[in-house]
């Protein structure tokens, strides 16, 4: 093990010394928490993050140590736990969807979406667009934008081919752009092209 052990090395060490796994938590808990916090009800965030790390701990023997960073794996587990807590996210998404379908003047911002954002109009616009997105696109967009994962890492997190990640991210971005600006007024300062395979989306 080097001076700064990789996640893979810590995973291996934790099989004999379980306490090594806590360093994995210390490295990635903030990123996982941020990802979960955006998707779960406020009161459920800690439970989901806790379940995700406990699951990771119990299944760490199955971690593929060919990968140095465990973050995509952890986010994949967190996504699964979120789906398992479907009632939690369901309430939130139901609220968002209701908001998305409501007339502009009746839009009631979801509690966590509205919190802490200065530009209420932009928050409303993004929340409305996210609520209308297909789940497949939403997962990938949030992993890309919220966790800064690369294509390969998103593929690992969700257990889907990298080609699917590329195509869904491209479609998800296009769809999000359309939803953000139905009238086509929204202009981007970047071309909407599929980045390179190894690159980071966006």
């Amino acid at each position, binding site marked *: 093990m080097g001076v700064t052990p990789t996640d893979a090395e810590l995973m291996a060490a934790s099989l004999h010394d*379980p306490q090594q796994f806590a360093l994995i*938590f*210390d490295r990635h808990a903030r990123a996982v928490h941020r990802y979960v916090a955006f998707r779960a009800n406020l009161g459920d965030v800690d439970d989901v993050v806790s379940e995700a790390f406990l699951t990771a701990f119990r299944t760490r023997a199955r971690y593929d140590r060919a990968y140095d960073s465990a973050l995509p794996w952890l986010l994949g587990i967190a996504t699964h736990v979120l789906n398992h807590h479907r009632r939690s996210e369901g309430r939130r998404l139901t609220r968002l969807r209701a908001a998305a379908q409501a007339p502009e003047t009746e839009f009631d911002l979801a509690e966590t979406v509205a919190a802490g954002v200065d530009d209420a109009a932009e928050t409303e616009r993004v929340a409305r667009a996210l609520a209308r997105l297909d789940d497949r696109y939403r997962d990938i967009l949030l992993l890309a934008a919220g966790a800064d994962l690369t294509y390969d890492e998103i593929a690992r997190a969700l257990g889907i*081919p990298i080609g699917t990640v590329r195509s869904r991210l491209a479609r998800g971005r296009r769809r999000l752009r359309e939803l953000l600006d139905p009238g086509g007024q929204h*202009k981007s300062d970047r071309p909407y092209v599929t980045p390179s395979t190894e690159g980071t989306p966006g």
Partner: protein
Amino acid sequence: MIDELELLRRHIYATVGSDPDLEPVRRRLVTAIDEEAEAAPASRRLSGGPHRLGRRAALSFGSLVAVGVAAAVVALLVVAAPPAPHSTPRKTTEPFPSHLPVGDQLRLIADRVVEQPIPHLQADQLLFTRANLSVAATVNDGAAQATIGLSVEKWSTASGQTCTTLTAQPAQFASPSEQAAWVGLHLLVTPNPPMANQCLQEGGAAAPPDAITGAGQLIDVSSLPTDPSTLAREFESGTTGIPALDQLLSDEAAPNLAFQRAAMLLIGPTVGASPQFAAALFQVIALLPGVTALGPTTTHDGEIGQGFASGPGTGQSTIVVDPSTGQLLEVRGLDDSDSLSSIAVNYLGGGSMLVNGYSAQLQWLDPIGSPSVIGLSDLPDGLPVYVFATTKPGLSYNDASTSVNHVTQPYFSFFKSSQSQNTDPSNPNSPDVFQWSFAGPGPVVDQFIQTLRASGLFASVSEI
């Protein structure tokens, strides 16, 4: 001006804040870690080191989180654990020897397949598979044609029940005139609704032989031989004893039926396969006359694998596999006339009397990831709950129908659907499979199942 990903990124950061209190979460994890460390034999525990938790871990003994609660959570999580990333086999970094004869290439892949683990399905678990596919639909003998994109998700139990969710995309047309012909038959471009759900019991009602796309069930291959020559003969003659395979295009003299049957089992979902059987599928293909190697081949999802076709030239069936694991990446050109059986009505827009027939050809199918084993509680909310009950031996539909109606009458208003069929369609006196669906899980369903079991009419009652 910023792009949509950056906008989303800002939105997330602004919404969730940047300095969460993670200590409560950490305490829960450390409790579980401490439990395992305590349970481990002393010889397995290391005596510290530069990366040990040390003091923080020591302080966590007697944490606020009760051990019992943590253990219960962990017990749940074992069921909820997703497939580990490495369950999706990775591509080999070694170059594949495409210069070898096709038979040698396939046998080389078989050698690697036999080393791959096979998901084992317990009684309380489901095998979950997903695929994207494209189907060429032809209506009224070519009067209208379109390409239909489908997404299929299947959940199968070890006892042969399979629920399928089929989501269809808007029809695509090669030209405006084709679209005009489609619309001229009062067919919808965007299906309404876009999704079809269906659950089937093996041997029960509505069991079409299309194992590929629509309502296909879990195929139990445990009875099939693992000897490649024997298996190849059964594929060629259609004598496997598995209707989903043997009835494939039974009325057409397709030259590549054996190849298609092998491809169908690569698609699955299957149960009862051993690593030897999985390897035998490739050895069978190696034995089939006319099979050709296509070399490195890119799928519609952008993955690169080794391609093999049932014969030279176009119009053949093709598989693309990861040569390091044998994982199927794509299938092209399978005959699957029932591809749209579950979703076709959704393009009719309330019933077009102008449609008098259609056919469908599977253009390509890309499995998404590897089959994964999940818990029953992981079924998505949108699926209805199906209850299956098989009458006791010797109790046919005619014998049982009156009693069953009497028993189930209090629940009639809760049924979304109900149907029944003989377990052996050729024998009207065979036991009957009754099937009811409910909008979703709940106490009514639980009570209904208890009522069925208490009735004494059924040999088995199950739900999915």
